[in-house]
């Protein structure tokens, strides 16, 4: 589904008095089902075996979650 991202970020307020090193950018998930509405006919499909592995037949709903740790290690497909 084009260049849309399934993750959004925001920058929380950072106090000079915070006890822990700040996490400046927080990330949250906004997965595909929030946007599609009633699924229209004729959407692109994965081949059968890839669909079994992905957990969905429909490419537009595929949104694998990786932890920041995994992303830093480059484990993202």
């Amino acid at each position: 589904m084009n260049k849309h991202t399934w993750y959004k970020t925001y920058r929380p307020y950072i106090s000079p008095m915070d006890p822990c090193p700040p996490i400046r950018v927080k990330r949250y998930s906004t997965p595909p089902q929030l946007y599609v509405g009633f699924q229209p006919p004729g959407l692109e499909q994965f081949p059968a075996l890839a669909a079994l592995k992905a957990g969905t037949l429909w490419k537009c709903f595929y949104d694998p979650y990786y932890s920041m740790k995994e992303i830093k290690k480059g484990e993202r497909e």
Partner: protein
Amino acid sequence: MWVYEKKLQYPVRVSTCNPTLAKYLIEQYGGADGELAAALRYLNQRYTIPDKVVGLLTDIGTEEFAHLEMIATMVYKLTKDATPDQMKAAGLSGHFADHDKALFYHNAAGVPWTATYIQAKGDPIADLYEDIAAEEKARATYQWLIDLSDDPDLNDGLRYLREREVIHSQRFREAVEMLKEERDRKKVF
């Protein structure tokens, strides 16, 4: 009636001996937003929902049991060979005292599963909105489990389960659209 297939919905592989992960995973077994709660919620609500969405609740409720089985397999693999000392080090001594290695329906903090986690309001929209919320909460739980886990094989299975929550949420949202019956009408409210 159900037909049981003696295999998992998705292969469960665990690459590291890490009983601590079992302590976290049990959240999806007997937690408020876990697979047991999901299965029992949908399979109970389906009796009093309009005919055209009964099948959806049956299918998704059934699939939740397949997910429950995957979580159980993960927990079992992570704990079956742990010594009492390893269970203790993993924070599972309380569980061990009560259950040995047996699985039990409680959450990651040891709180036993309760029917108060689920609801059947009898109002189709209220019930489906609860179901959508339950799927989003389960999806979030899988995200936090992936964040906690260092096991690439386990995370592969957790990512699959999270993807299924995405699809279930989508289908419940479509069920709401079907019950609204305004889907094909070009109407401005």
